[in-house]
């Protein structure tokens, strides 16, 4: 049976570790390798950071994460209700950042795309942004299993 969970939390940077670790814990039932779990944690961290830094820009707000398993896959949706992305095509380019001078690398979306099996993003100006990404576990089973003893 498919498993699902939903997390809703304040857009505060101290929630970044909580969010990525909660999603990683949810994935453990699918027997991911350590590398696969690390990929998921990194991608979730990027998406949640985008919500906090870009969507709400330090203002109060809510981030919602919904996860669902399907066979050997986890589907993750991370949504905010913030300002939306002005130019989505540009935002997806490597090294593109709207926060020059704040030491942002502009690599967040590139990492989500590279580290996950599937990735898509929808954004509406003033209406928030929603990232959907999936990871298919077990496609490259050369490494250690994360929840092995």
């Amino acid at each position, binding site marked *: 049976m498919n498993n699902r969970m939903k997390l809703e939390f304040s857009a505060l940077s101290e929630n*970044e570790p909580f969010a990525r670790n909660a999603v990683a814990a949810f994935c453990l039932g699918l027997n991911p390798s350590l590398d696969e779990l690390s990929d998921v944690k990194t991608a979730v961290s990027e998406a949640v*950071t985008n919500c906090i830094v870009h969507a709400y820009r330090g203002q109060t707000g809510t981030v919602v994460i919904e996860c669902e398993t399907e066979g050997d896959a986890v589907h993750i949706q991370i949504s905010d209700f913030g300002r939306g992305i002005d130019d989505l095509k540009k935002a997806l380019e490597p090294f593109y950042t709207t926060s020059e001078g704040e030491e942002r690398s502009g690599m967040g979306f590139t990492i989500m795309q590279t580290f996950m099996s599937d990735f898509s993003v929808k954004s509406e100006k003033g209406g928030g942004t929603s990232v959907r990404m999936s990871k298919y576990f077990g496609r490259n089973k050369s490494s250690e299993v994360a929840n092995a003893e």
Partner: protein
Amino acid sequence: MDITVKRTSDTLYIYLGGELDEHNARAARERADSEIDAHAGVGRVVIDLAGVRFMDSSAIGFLIGRYKKLKRYATPLFLRGVGAAADKVLSVSGIYTLIPKM
């Protein structure tokens, strides 16, 4: 995020430990910069990532920021102790052309 430093005659070693994400990057930046300023004139700086358990693209911004600061001192920056997960994040950015691994 834990930061410790060690100075030898020609090298400043900066050891990072813990998780390097957007939440921790500011404190890491302030601490690393104050050590770099305190050791201005050193021959080279080495950032050791062996103790880093997690990093995301905030680490790329952090490292490029320190590279730019050290460039003003004409001091080269190197990386060591890069684990597999950190290497995957850093490789995406091509950062090793600026900051080589030892």
